[in-house]
């Protein structure tokens, strides 16, 4: 059994982190002077995530860079700000292959189609799995949405540019989020009405955006670990500062790893309306308490295993981005004829 390493999340503003021997020591000015310092062994952490107002000492940053451990800085709302990593590693030949593929429209199209097919398949699974646990009108509505989405796979087959693939992705996402009121029970109370972002205007969308942020960090890290360039994408266009490949690879994970967790948290009432702040501009934001609950749930959800149709075995959620990044790298190196997205069966 491989021991999964943990991510350390620091979200209390005013906390400073220091390197103490081979541990991270967390200090907060409000700490009880007699209390024992909070320490976490570095060997147990593969990634540090610091939210707004958290100070990471330079010593600790340098040590993390030397060990190949990345440090990510997010705003208190979970938006990505910066990430520090050590010297670039990996295989230049792989990066060269990636750039060549990104320059070849036919190759870009093939990879994009595979990724979006994975996303559509997994979105359908979310609908079907929820339908299985519900009854009556809700079940019928969810099954109808799943049926509608399955039809979109046909459109994907005939797409002949990445623009068209994007179009199919857009229509499918619209169909899928139209079923949101059936995926979330007590939909009225949560003021659900489709997908909204920048800013999210209801708690469900706020939670989705937050989880997508966590997922993006995980996928970005996995790509870097495998030696792929996260900024050169196939479906998403190349733009300064936009991790296009991370956004591409994320698509197939969104429905099951992020959406389903969000629905579970709301439907099981593990999060309540008190866990969200309603801001004057209409946006919703997680409270400190709510955020802590979401981290805990996210971290736990990373331990569970999912079936992997192509590999034919169960894989921990935490390792899925890494597994897919490796499959993509093998495809780009020419060892695999086609990229195989993650799909559950």
């Amino acid at each position, binding site marked *: 059994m491989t021991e999964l390493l943990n991510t350390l999340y620091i979200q209390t503003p005013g906390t400073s982190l220091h390197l103490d021997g081979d541990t991270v020591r967390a200090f907060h000015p409000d700490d009880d002077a007699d209390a024992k310092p909070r320490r976490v*062994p570095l060997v147990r952490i593969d990634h540090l995530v610091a939210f707004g107002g958290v100070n990471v000492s330079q010593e600790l940053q340098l040590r993390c860079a030397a060990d190949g451990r990345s440090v990510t800085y997010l705003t208190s709302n979970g938006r990505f700000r910066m990430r520090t990593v050590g010297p670039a590693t990996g295989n230049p030949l792989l990066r060269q292959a990636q750039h060549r593929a990104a320059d070849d429209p036919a190759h870009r199209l093939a990879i994009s189609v595979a990724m979006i097919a994975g996303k559509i398949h997994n979105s359908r699974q979310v609908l079907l799995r929820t339908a299985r646990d519900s009854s009556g009108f809700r079940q019928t509505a969810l099954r109808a949405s799943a049926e509608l989405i399955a039809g979109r796979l046909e459109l994907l087959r005939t797409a002949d540019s990445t623009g068209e693939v994007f179009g199919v992705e857009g229509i499918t996402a619209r169909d899928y989020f139209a079923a949101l009121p059936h995926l979330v029970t007590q939909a009225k109370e949560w003021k659900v009405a489709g997908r909204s972002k920048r800013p999210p205007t209801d708690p469900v969308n706020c939670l989705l955006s937050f989880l997508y942020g966590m997922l993006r960090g995980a996928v970005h890290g996995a790509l870097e670990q495998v030696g792929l360039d996260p900024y050169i994408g196939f479906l998403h266009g190349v733009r300064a500062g936009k991790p296009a490949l991370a956004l591409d690879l994320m698509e197939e994970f969104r429905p099951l790893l992020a959406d389903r967790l969000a629905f579970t948290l709301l439907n099981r009432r593990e999060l309540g309306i008190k866990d969200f702040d309603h801001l004057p501009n209409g946006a919703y934001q997680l409270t400190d308490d709510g955020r802590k609950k979401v*981290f805990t749930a996210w971290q736990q959800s990373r331990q569970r295993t999912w079936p992997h149709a192509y590999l034919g075995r169960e894989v921990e959620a935490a390792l899925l981005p890494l597994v897919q990044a490796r499959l993509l790298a093998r495809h780009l190196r020419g060892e695999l004829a086609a990229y195989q997205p993650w799909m559950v069966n």
Partner: protein
Amino acid sequence: MDLLVTYDVETTTPAGQRRLRKVAKICEGYGHRVQKSVFEVVCRDADKVKLVAAIEAVIDPARDSVRIYRLPAMALDDVEHLGRPRAMDPRGPFVI
């Protein structure tokens, strides 16, 4: 793997006290202190080799004693605890 590390370091001399501090420092780098000289460690095989080597380099074999128990998988998740609570769950999420 789950390990339980316990140690006895003779502290009658300043050199002994130094060794004690060093052993504690090494253990802190791998696990959580649950009692004064007891650590719970969750680590990978390679980390255990490093831990043993680091402790071996520090202790005085004639005076000190360190015991590293290898526990069955996930044994640290099933611990009965009385008294003051344990600071952190060895495998749980790290959120500060």
